[in-house]
């Protein structure tokens, strides 16, 4: 089975995956990334703030990007909803 690497940015730290995981296909690797992202976000969001970006980049054995997934979490109070979050450009900080 080919090996895939899952580099994670959790809003505070960038953690490259030194080890990788052997998986049957890039499609399964994409599913694995999606599940991982949702698990990590589900645990981290409730304890850490109202604004958080989680991002996983899946690389193959030659370290070429095969897919990317992100969760961009916001909470906004009604009086702060004048602009949509995507307008603010925070995503460019990565």
């Amino acid at each position, binding site marked *: 089975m080919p090996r895939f690497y*899952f580099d*994670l940015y959790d809003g505070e730290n960038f*953690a490259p*995956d*030194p*080890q990788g*995981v052997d998986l049957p296909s890039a499609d399964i690797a994409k599913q*694995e*990334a999606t*599940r*991982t992202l949702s*698990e*990590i976000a589900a*645990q981290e969001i409730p304890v850490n703030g109202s604004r958080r970006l989680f991002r*996983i980049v899946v690389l193959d054995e030659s370290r070429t990007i095969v897919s990317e997934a992100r969760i961009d979490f916001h909470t906004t109070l009604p009086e702060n909803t004048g602009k949509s979050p995507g307008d603010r450009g925070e995503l460019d900080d990565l």
Partner: protein
Amino acid sequence: MIYDIDVLIAKLEAIGNLPEEHRQALRNLPLQKASVERGHDVVMDGNIMTHCCIVLSGMLHRHKTMKDGSRQVISFHPAGDIPDLQSLHLRKVDYTLSATTRSQIALVEHSAIRDMLHNQPKLTDLMWRDTLIDSAKFLTWMMLVGQASAEARMAHLFCEIYTRLNAVGDVSGYAFAFPATQSDIADALGMSIVHANRTLQMLRSESLLAFANGQAEILDWPRLSRLAQFDSSYLHLSGE
């Protein structure tokens, strides 16, 4: 003299009293020994059993698989365990039992176990106790999988395996064999493989736990067990 069954005797002695006549009765059990390769199934969901399986060396695990293919590993069984003792009374098994690593097992006919318990009725108490402890582990694991953080779940798994192996003398300091794969551990803890790896890396970077190639070492028991909120009383090792 050393008997194959002594691993079972050591395990039972860790959870209760085992007088000499009970040890003798266990040593008289007719064993059919077999070797199983990693990943091979010993018992499959739906099988109707006529024997139980004692782990002599290596490790087995029980698991259940959803119709969509998602797998939950429900327990790990090192040497000395009888992972399918329930099949004595619940002959149609509702889980699959597989080899975590290359293992030696002994199959014992249900009729032989029944005869032994008929002749040594008090040994039934200990077998019953073992089955109840098995279910006590599930209570704790249900709580962990439902409520604990990924780090706490991972830490707890290693605290439990260490404590069980320590009770039968299968540890070297805080180092022990835990021959589970990334995927077995992820499926036991209800997390993705990548998440499980990342969690192990975090525990390693905090100098709590080292785990590679089936070998584990707890680097800081007080901190790891505190992170896990580990309380070994559910393993009932004291004989209480």
